[in-house]
């Protein structure tokens, strides 16, 4: 069953939270009216691996305004050590540099920070190992990769096929650690009310319910004793998906100073060690093809890191399992646990680094075969999902490639990579890459719709808007589900007092929450008719989608990039990029375009500027601020264009949506790398593609 009358879905609406955001009056985590707030400032480990042997808090405690100094010696014992990332201030062990080892709570931010610097901590420092390298002796095969894919897959004998292939590519690509860096640093404000036994968190999170459901048992509380509130969140990009150590730290502090709101805003620098990041990767891709470009073998072997205290296995090769047709295929993931911060989700985990390598390799194959790289991809378009054999619910990669090539002016491209100086001396070239991202539906979302006295509809679900446009787009879904106009919808989100909702992650929000809202609307109408009386209400749940057993469900896209390279300095500029996407029905073209643009912008940043540099001696991310970790700035971004292919996919969900938060970043880096190669004749297989690498490679 799908929505048949589309009035608000597909309509261009200004963000409903827009006026509050442009006037700065939308409250983020630290900005709610707290009476009598106090401030936490953490102390971080200054060794990468070791044991705390002494703690001196005397000087810190004597700073005027300090209320308490928490360490592993006096902090409340947590009920579970299952998640060692969250096992904060529970032991003297240090497992990575930057780990929280103490917290000062004071009546002003200045006093808390001053006192934190006075906490004296002695360590027995052990040898550490923080560098991912291909020859590391401790690689292992994880049981599964995020979230639940097999680590390895094999179809046929790709090794044999490669030896007899007419043309082959064998290349190794590397990507660095990347940090999410949402503009709002992770912030938790926690308050423990002993009289009512209630813990209240104002949190910057992608999932209020996941924070509640994770933290409550750690403190021996029932979930009903914990509230989490997040009406507005200043970006997340995955790093605010699961709760991190600071959430626990804030609660420990709140329980130590009952009745006070403890504000714990992390500094920008702290985020580099305690809020997740994308693992560096080493990826070997081998492609074998017939002389006409038809693939006969694909292998994608991945080596990446995790932490000693918690495993996160990025699913880097998963997109290779479904992207192109081939009779033989192998994908593998190997992990090594290092003395590093805990890696986690960052926008399109898996697809982003994996498609960078895979789509560069396809470009290398096109050159080896002597084909247009657009045509090479189209030649290897699978008729069914290569991994499962299931048909695709819809797959419009070819349409994206064709439409993009047409709009970009691809037909006139010189496919031979070589230095191509223009009249101004700049080298110019273009590149293409494909994008893909799965249609994810998360378990555990419920919506309640109630008719208000004025005839409008309250739509309640604990979803979160992290900038994706949920406040607007989910209301548009509700309007069409109820067959009313948007102004009849009062959406309520961002609070655990609302029905349970899954994380704003995996591009799953509208698919999941929208389905719950749709089901609630159906239940309301079937019980109370199309004109329900005030006070009437109904509940809907987003259950599993049976069609997922019959169809492979993915969004696709094609990205075209033009670059200009200065021959003398190696500086790369991107004057034009075009992304064409086939991502199901677009709920709000205005906010959707922004999401695609935002993904592509972060993709350009991934390709050209961002990288986190760890010091092997200290285990420290040395470029841990926004002056040294370079994200795209306004001056870097020009000429970005976005378009999409209309899709009417009846299988994905009642709205026909596929999720658009992540696909925009997938493939961008490969398109840039391929364009740089086309412009210069120099192939850089190590992100980011910086001037020094081009010059060292002989530009």
């Amino acid at each position: 069953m799908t929505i048949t009358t589309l009035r608000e879905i597909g309509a261009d609406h200004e963000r409903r939270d827009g006026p509050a955001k442009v006037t700065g009056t939308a409250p983020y985590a630290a900005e709610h009216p707290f009476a009598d707030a106090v401030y936490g400032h953490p102390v971080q480990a200054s060794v990468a691996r070791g044991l705390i042997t002494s703690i001196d808090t005397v000087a810190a405690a004597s700073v005027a305004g300090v209320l308490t100094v928490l360490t592993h010696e006096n902090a409340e014992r947590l009920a579970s050590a299952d998640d060692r990332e969250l096992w904060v201030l529970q032991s003297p062990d240090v497992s990575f540099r930057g780990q929280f080892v103490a917290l000062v709570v004071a009546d002003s931010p200045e006093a808390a920070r001053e006192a934190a610097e006075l906490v004296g901590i002695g360590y027995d420092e052990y040898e550490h190992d923080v560098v991912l390298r291909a020859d590391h002796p401790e690689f292992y095969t994880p049981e599964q990769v995020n979230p639940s894919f097999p680590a390895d897959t094999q179809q046929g004998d790709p090794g044999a096929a490669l030896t007899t292939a007419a043309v082959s590519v064998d290349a190794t690509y590397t990507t660095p650690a990347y940090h999410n860096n949402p503009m709002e640093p992770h912030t938790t404000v926690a308050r423990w009310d002993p009289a009512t036994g209630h813990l209240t968190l104002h949190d910057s999170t992608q999932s209020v319910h996941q924070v509640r459901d994770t933290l409550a048992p750690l403190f021996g509380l029932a979930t009903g004793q914990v509230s989490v509130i997040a009406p507005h969140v200043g970006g997340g990009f995955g790093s605010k998906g699961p709760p991190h150590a600071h959430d626990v730290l804030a609660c420990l502090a709140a329980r130590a100073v009952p009745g006070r709101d403890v504000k714990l805003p992390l500094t920008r620098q702290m985020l580099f060690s305690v809020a997740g990041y994308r693992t560096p990767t080493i990826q070997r891709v081998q492609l074998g093809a017939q002389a006409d470009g038809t693939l006969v073998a694909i292998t994608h072997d991945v080596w990446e890191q995790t932490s000693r205290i918690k495993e996160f296995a990025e699913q880097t090769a998963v997109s290779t399992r479904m992207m192109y047709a081939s009779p033989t295929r192998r994908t593998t993931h190997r992990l090594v646990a290092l003395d590093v911060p805990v890696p986690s989700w960052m926008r399109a985990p898996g697809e982003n680094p994996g498609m960078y390598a895979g789509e560069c390799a396809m470009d290398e194959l096109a050159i080896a075969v002597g084909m247009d790289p657009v045509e090479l991809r189209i030649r290897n378009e699978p008729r069914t999902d290569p991994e499962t054999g299931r048909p695709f619910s819809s797959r419009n990669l070819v349409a994206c490639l064709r439409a993009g090539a047409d709009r970009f002016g691809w037909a006139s491209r010189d496919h031979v990579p070589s230095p191509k100086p223009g009249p101004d001396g700049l080298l110019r070239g273009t590149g293409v890459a494909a994008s893909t991202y799965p249609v994810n539906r998360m378990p555990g979302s419920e919506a309640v719709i109630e008719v208000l006295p004025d005839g409008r509809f309250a739509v309640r679900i604990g979803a979160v808007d992290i900038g994706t446009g949920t406040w607007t787009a989910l209301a548009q879904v509700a309007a069409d589900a109820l067959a009313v106009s948007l102004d009849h919808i009062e959406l309520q989100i961002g609070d655990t007092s609302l029905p349970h909702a899954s994380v704003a992650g995996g591009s799953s929000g509208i698919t999941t929450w929208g389905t719950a809202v749709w089901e609630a609307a159906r239940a309301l109408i079937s019980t109370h008719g199309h004109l329900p009386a005030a006070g009437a209400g109904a509940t809907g749940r987003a259950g599993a989608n049976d069609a997922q057993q019959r169809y492979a469900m993915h969004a696709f896209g094609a990205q075209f990039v033009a670059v200009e390279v200065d021959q003398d300095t190696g500086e790369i500029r991107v004057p034009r990029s075009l992304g064409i996407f086939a991502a199901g029905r677009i709920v709000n073209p205005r906010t959707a375009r922004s999401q695609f643009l935002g993904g592509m912008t972060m993709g350009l940043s991934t390709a050209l500027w961002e990288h986190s540099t760890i010091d092997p001696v200290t285990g420290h991310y040395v470029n841990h601020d926004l002056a040294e970790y370079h994200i795209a700035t306004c001056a870097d971004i020009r000429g970005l264009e976005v378009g999409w292919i209309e899709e009417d996919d009846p299988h994905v969900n009642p709205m026909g949506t596929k999720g658009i938060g992540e696909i925009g970043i997938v493939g961008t880096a490969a398109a840039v790398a391929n364009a740089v190669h086309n412009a210069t004749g120099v192939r850089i297989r190590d992100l980011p593609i910086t001037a020094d690498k081009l010059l060292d490679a002989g530009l």
Partner: protein
Amino acid sequence: MEMTIYLTVDGEPRTATVDTRVTLLDLLRERLGATAPKKGCDHGQCGSCTVLLDGRRVTTCLAFAVQHDGAEITTAAGLGTAGKPHPVQRAFLDHDGFQCGYCTPGQICSAVGMLTELDAGWPSHATPDVAARPERTADEIRERMSGNLCRCGAYMNIVAAIEEAAG
């Protein structure tokens, strides 16, 4: 050490007795309840805390409060209201020049200050002839807005919004 200072914040006279270490940003956010300026880096690297201070754009995380006794401060909340937004705020809404909204009040204050600087003839790195009067071009806007980071990647729409507001 504490000092008492007098400020005008979004048209309201305010008095505060503050530790001399308190930044203007922390004074506004933590003591005066003016949370339109955001804390994104606390190091002058992201621009989220930008306000107009005596008419000029300033990153308040790099300013000590006590240095600005008597200052007139306009935050995004003072430029306009939800019902009556400033033309730059209206243009940000029309062009969807934001997503999460956290950098947005700083972007908007910065844009207003930047247009004043352009009109005063201040050159930038993107000015072709620094002796000539700079024009309100997209290149000038991009260059002059590069102190305001946006991780959601709304730059294309931010530039379009400012171009429209600049007329």
